């Protein structure tokens, strides 16, 4: 992903190891003084071979593996995968399980957006906001821990339902936590939209028009901040989003400020939605039986992760293991917007611009680079193995 407007003079490398990056990635910014003249992105430092690994595990075991694709939006991976497998198996989960899945997915969105707010503030050198928002994020982490016993990988899903129930006491705790968070979010909204020094770092920085966003295939809050009304929850509602629709949050600004506003507005909508879901929880079972062997077939399933549209492709050959699982995470769609928008900005804006899409590096490191410049050759399995051993010797 390269975008050059001038011959390079002075290249500032950011990564794979750099204080601004919490995960390894490599960015090369060509600069002329402080102005960025070119931007190159290289990914793939945390390729873990998860897709291949799924083919050796059963459908149930994969649930645990896939939840570990991302450390921040772990739950949505398990949820989307479970929905896909249930669709292949042709089972319908009980309504109460649907509601619980939705509530946990939305709580995860709260935690992810608050985390992003802190990280973005830190990249802009506003550490006070960083510390405050992460302190308040503990509230939602505690709620999730109270529900599932875990702070990060909640393990909500089973194939055919969910693992835990939400009783009235827990529901009240969630309501109280949300009241507190809503008050804090109002405060952050005020800080982000009125603090002059912070506005100086976000207003009119990294502006992406609606045409550009559509052309580059941006997804999630990044696209919505450019005025693209795109959200899987409202485009093709799944789980409980049919009965309780979301209010789509769109902003026409396209700059970093718009991304802050869209994500914070989404938080308000999420609080409303969780309260509504808690008030209307249907009674009933949590699980249904699903056969161990999933019938032959393939399915493409989408879900809205905190960062945008998450796509799973599942293919079954009728055994207890999947034939192929392909994952496309939202960060991958948004990378292209950075190299496109970066040119012409100041070097100091780059960290915020990078964080503006809420990137998740290890999520999308599932790529294979096809080298077209050298003569390609077919290798047998043994030859490939020998090549691998030689390469890493």
């Amino acid at each position, binding site marked *: 992903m390269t975008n050059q407007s001038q011959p390079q003079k*002075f*290249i*500032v*490398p950011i990564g794979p190891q*750099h*204080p*601004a990056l919490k995960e390894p990635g490599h960015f090369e910014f060509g*600069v002329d*003084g*402080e102005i960025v003249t070119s931007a190159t992105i290289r990914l793939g430092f945390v390729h873990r071979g998860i897709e291949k690994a799924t083919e050796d595990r059963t459908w149930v075991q994969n649930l645990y593996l896939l939840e570990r694709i991302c450390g921040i939006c772990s739950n949505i991976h398990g949820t989307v995968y479970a929905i896909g497998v249930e669709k292949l198996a042709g089972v319908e989960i009980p309504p109460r399980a649907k509601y619980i899945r939705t509530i946990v997915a939305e709580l995860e969105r709260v935690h992810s957006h608050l985390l992003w707010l802190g990280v973005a*503030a*830190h*990249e*802009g*050198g*506003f*550490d*006070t*906001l960083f*510390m*405050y928002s992460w*302190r308040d994020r503990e509230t939602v982490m505690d709620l999730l821990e109270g529900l599932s016993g875990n702070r990060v990988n909640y393990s909500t899903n089973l194939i055919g339902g969910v693992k835990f129930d939400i009783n009235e006491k827990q529901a009240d705790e969630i309501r109280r936590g949300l009241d507190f968070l809503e008050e804090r979010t109002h405060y952050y909204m005020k800080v982000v939209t009125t*603090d002059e*020094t*912070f506005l*100086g*770092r976000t207003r009119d920085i990294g502006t992406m028009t609606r045409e550009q966003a559509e052309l580059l295939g941006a997804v999630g809050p990044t696209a919505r901040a450019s005025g693209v009304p795109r959200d899987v929850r409202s485009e093709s509602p799944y789980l409980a989003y049919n009965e309780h629709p979301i209010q789509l949050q769109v902003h026409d600004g396209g700059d970093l400020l718009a991304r802050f506003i869209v994500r914070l507005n989404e938080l308000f909508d999420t609080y409303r939605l969780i309260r509504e879901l808690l008030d209307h929880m249907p009674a009933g079972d949590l699980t249904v039986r699903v056969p161990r062997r999933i019938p032959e077939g393939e399915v493409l399933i989408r879900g809205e992760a905190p960062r945008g549209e998450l796509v799973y492709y599942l293919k079954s050959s009728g055994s207890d293991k999947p034939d192929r699982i392909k994952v496309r995470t939202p960060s991958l769609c948004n990378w292209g917007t950075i190299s496109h928008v970066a040119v012409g900005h*100041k*070097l*100091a*804006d*780059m*960290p915020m611009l990078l964080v503006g899409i809420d990137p998740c590096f290890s999520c999308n490191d599932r790529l294979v680079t096809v080298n077209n410049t050298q003569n390609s050759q077919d290798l047998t399995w043994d030859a490939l193995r020998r090549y691998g051993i030689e390469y890493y010797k």
Partner: protein
Amino acid sequence: MNNIFPLIALLIFPGGLFLMASGLVYEWVDRKLIARYQNRVGPRWFQPLADVVKLLAKEEIIPTGVSRGLFVALPVIGMAGALTAALYVPIAGFAPSFSFAGDLVVTLYLLSMMTLCLGLAGANTTDRFSLIGATRTLTQLFSYEAPFLLALLGPAIVAGTWNIAEINNFAGQNIWLVVTQLMGFLVALVGLLGKLEMPPFDAPEAETEIVSGALTEYSGRGLALFRLGKDVELVVGLTLVASFYLGGIANPLEFLLKTLGLLIVMAGMQSLFARLRIDQTVGLWWRIGALLALVQLLVLIVVRVLR
């Protein structure tokens, strides 16, 4: 025997050991205050000292492609500049150890040595982060230096002298100059933040962009000296501003109260704002800082002429 007292002044009090110790204490207070403002616990009281001891015990790596002499000498020169500057200001409320007509100008130049050394240290290496950091350090020097100087000239003009000790006495006998010269006080205080590269003026060492700026390649002794030098400069700068604008410093208690009071305000400013980009810093200083200081100077001159 004649040489004993100047030696004590240089090595133990108020220069040398005392200054370094107080610098470390003030750094701790600064860090602790910011941490409390940000809802963190903050470091323990000996953390700055522990950092320095640890750094001194570590190997100093001299990267390839640098001028070795310069690389080793620059931290020493910067530190020496900051320590020497302390001899002309009323540290701890005692009369300055050395004093002559016009020592204000010398002190200001000595304080700028540190920044110049930082810039040179960055430009000396071939590291790209250091080079950008050095450019930013020097750009920032050019933006805050003139307003800062003008802001400290205000009290000097009112007092009718360029001698720090005399200005200090004058400030102690008259109404606090912060009341009559509020603009100058603000410019001086914010100028101190810029001088010490503290947030929101920490673009020269913005860790999320250029790692550690000009100091990226420094380790061990050099890094320890630069950090100590900055701590010393913090104490000297606080003393200077407090003695000029907050009614002078006549005894150790006043020194403690006034400098710590200033530090509380500075820590607040450090945690209130997002980091300014270097172009925003320059714009802020020349559009607002310099203008404020100039207006203030003009008013002072007019009032003086009319009298």
